C-alpha cells in the first residue's frame, strides 16, 4: 500500500526518530511511504487553546496537502500520534463548519476518513499484529486519552506489543487515567498537570519497567520529562520505535 506519512509538527521538529521508526516499520512490511513535504501541523494546539480562526488556516493547508497525496495514489495517511490523528478526524470538519466553509468541511471529512493513527493502520487496516519486531526490555504501555477515547484504538497497540519478541510487557495500574499533559494545559495549569503527572509516574514506577511507551510523543514528552527530572531511570520510548526495533537493528 502507498501510505502518506503525516509526521506531525512535534514529530518533525522535536522527535524525528518517531517518524523514522514509522517509516522503517511500514517499509519493512513492504509498503511504500511517501512524505508530502508541504505538510506542517494539524492545528490542534490552536484549536484547543481557543484560536479557532488561526486553526482554520492550518486545517485548510493540511487538507490541501493530504488531498493531493490521496490524489497521487496514497490509500491511507498515517500519523504516529493518537492526538493529531484525533484532531484530523474529530476537529477539522467541525472547525471548517464553524467558520462557515461547508466545502472545506466536506474535503476535510474525506481526508479524515483516510487518516489513521499508526496502531490503527497496522491492526485495523492492514490486519497485522506481528510486525517482526524484537525488543528485549521490560515495558509498560500508557494508552493516551485521545487514542483511547477520541479515536477508539482500543487494544490495537497492546496487540502489537504482545507480538514483539523478547518484550516483557507489564500492565500499568490505572492506565486509562490522563497523564496530565493536555497541550497548553500543561503550562496554563502547571500545578494540576504536575499532580496528575506525579500519579502517572508512581504508577509507572510500581511496574518496575525500564521503558514507558505510548502512541503519542507529546504525552511521552511530559511523562518522560517528569521521569527524567526525578532521575528515575525509566525511559520514554514511542510505540513506533519499539515496533521498528529488530534483533538486527535494535
Amino acid at each position, binding site marked *: 500500500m502507498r501510505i502518506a506519512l503525516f509526521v506531525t509538527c512535534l514529530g518533525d521538529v522535536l522527535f524525528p526518530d518517531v517518524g523514522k521508526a514509522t517509516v522503517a516499520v511500514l517499509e519493512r512490511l513492504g509498503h511504500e511511504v511517501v512524505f508530502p513535504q508541504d505538510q506542517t501541523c494539524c492545528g490542534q494546539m490552536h484549536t484547543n487553546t481557543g484560536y479557532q*480562526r488561526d486553526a482554520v488556516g492550518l486545517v485548510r493547508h493540511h487538507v490541501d496537502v493530504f488531498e493531493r497525496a490521496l490524489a497521487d495514489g496514497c490509500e491511507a495517511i498515517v500519523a504516529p500520534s493518537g492526538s493529531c490523528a484525533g484532531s484530523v478526524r474529530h476537529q477539522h470538519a467541525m472547525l471548517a463548519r464553524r467558520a462557515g466553509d461547508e466545502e472545506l468541511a466536506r474535503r476535510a471529512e474525506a481526508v479524515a476518513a483516510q487518516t489513521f493513527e499508526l496502531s490503527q493502520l497496522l491492526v485495523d487496516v492492514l490486519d497485522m499484529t506481528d510486525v517482526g519486531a524484537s525488543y528485549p526490555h521490560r515495558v509498560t504501555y500508557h494508552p493516551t486519552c485521545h487514542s483511547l477515547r477520541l479515536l477508539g484504538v482500543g487494544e490495537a497497540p497492546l496487540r502489537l506489543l504482545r507480538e514483539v519478541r523478547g518484550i516483557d510487557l507489564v500492565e500499568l495500574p490505572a492506565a486509562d487515567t490522563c497523564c496530565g499533559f493536555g497541550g497548553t494545559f500543561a503550562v496554563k495549569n502547571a500545578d494540576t498537570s504536575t499532580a496528575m503527572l506525579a500519579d502517572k509516574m508512581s504508577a509507572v514506577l510500581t511496574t518496575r519497567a525500564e521503558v514507558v511507551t505510548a502512541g503519542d510523543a507529546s504525552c511521552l514528552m511530559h511523562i518522560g520529562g*517528569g521521569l527524567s527530572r526525578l532521575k528515575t531511570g525509566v525511559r520514554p520510548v514511542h510505540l513506533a520505535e519499539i515496533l521498528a526495533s529488530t534483533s538486527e537493528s535494535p
Partner: protein
Amino acid sequence: MSTFLGMPRGRVPGPPADPAVGQLTGDREFPDAARDALADTRLRRNLAHATSTIRAKRAQVVAEVPDWEALREAGSAIKAATMAQLPELLEQLEANVEARGGQVHWARDAAEANAIVTRLVQATGSDEVVKVKSMATQEIGLNEALEAAGISALETDLAELIVQLGHDRPSHILVPAIHRGRSEIREIFVREMPGVDPHLRDDPAALAAAARAHLRAAFLRARVAVSGANFGVAETGTLSVVESEGNGRMCLTLPQTLITVMGIEKVVPTWRDLEVFLQLLPRSSTGERMNPYTSTWAGVTAGDGPQEFHLVLLDNGRTRVLADELGRTALHCIRCSACLNVCPVYERTGGHAYGSVYPGPIGAVLSPQLTGLTGGHEPNDSLPYASSLCGACYDVCPVKINIPDLLVQLRAEHTEARADRRRLPSPEAAAMKAAAWAMADAQRFARAGRAATMARHGIRRGRPITPLPRPLNGWTASRDAPTPPAETFRDWWSRTRGDDSGDES
C-alpha cells in the same frame, strides 16, 4: 402568563447571570485556587478515596445494564427535543401546575427568584424554612437572601447540613461535603449542633444518628419547605425530587407550604420520559440501581401534604445559553456528577477551586456559560482551561454531553472576547498568530524547525540555560525539557530520500 423565558430564537439573547448574586463564581482564577487545594493533604486523601469508591460503584452498575448506550441516546434525544420546544413546554407545565392548585412564578435572575421566595415565606408568617438539597437554590444564594430577611433556612440533606454547620461551601454536586472526612464531620457537629453529645463518636452510624435527632425536631416544627426539582413534567404538572435519605420526603410532605425553585431546563415533556432518566440518574450519580426515595407531586391535594404549593421557574442566564446551538447541550445536564467523579482534575483539586456551586467538567462549562465570558481575568474565564481534555467526562455522561468540545468552544469564545476588548493582541494571541503564520507554509515551517534544532545548545540536562519566560517556565518547573535533535525529520528525509517523493513544493 406569557414569558420570554426559554425563547431564544429570533430574539436578543437573554441576559447573563449576575456573578455578584448567588454562587456561580469564585474570587480567584482556577490555577491559583487549585494550587492551594493541591497542597491540602487531607483534601487530596478524602477526594481520592471518595471519587475512586464512587467510580467503581458506577462502573459496576452501569456494566450490568445491557441497553445502557441506548438509554444514553434516549436521554440525549429527549433533552434535545425539550430544548427545541422549551417555551411551549414551560407554558404547558405552568398551566398544569396551576390547574392542580399550585402557583407558578417566573424569575429572570437570582435576585428576582430570591425576592419571590422571600416574599412567599414572609406571607406565611414563618421565620424558618426546611430545605431539600437543591443546586438551584445554592446557585442563587437563597439561604443568604433569606437570612438577610430574618428567615433561617435549615439544610436537611446530611451532607448539605455538614456544609452549612461548618460555615463552608459545597464542593460536589451530589456529595457536597466530599472534601470532609468523618473526624472533621464529628468536630463540626460537636462544635455547631445544639445539645449534641460531646463524646460523639466519629463512626458513620453515630454521626447519622446525631444528625437525625437534630433534624427530626425541625421537620415537626417546620411550616414552610423549600426544594429544588430534578424534573418537572409538562404534560401532568408533576414535580419530582430524587434522593437517598428520605429527609427530602419529610420536607416535601410535612410542612403546610412548599416552594420549589426549578431551573427552566429541568422540564421534560411527558411522564413517560421519567422512565429513561430514573434509570440513568441513580446509576450515574450514586452508583445505585435505584435511589431510595423518588418523590413526585402535582399541585396540592386536600388533606394530604402541603396545602400551598409554589413553583419558581428560574432563568438566571439559561435562555442565553439556549441561544447557542452547541452550548445549549450543557443544559441537558441532569446533575448526576458522574463527570466530576471521573475527572482527573476534579479528583485532585476538589470543587472549591472552581468557585461555583457547579464544579468539575460540567461546572467548567456551565458556570462561565451562565455568567458569560468577559475575555478578562474574571475567575470564570479561567474555567474552560481547567481541563486536559482527556474525555473521561464525555464517556460517562448519561445524556452524552460532549464536554471536551464545549470546553474547546468556550476557550475560543474567551480568546475572541479578549481580542475584542484589547487594542493590542495579548502575548499569547501574538505567539499563536506567529505560529499559525509559520505553520501555514512548509518553507517557513522548515526554517522555524531548523531554528528550533539550534535551541538544543540552550538546554543542559533537561534544563534551559536561560530560564524560560511565563508560562513556559511552568513546564520546566516539574519536567525536563526535551533536547531538540540535530536534524528535523523533513531535513533527514530530504537528505536521505531526496525531494522526489510526495507533492511538489
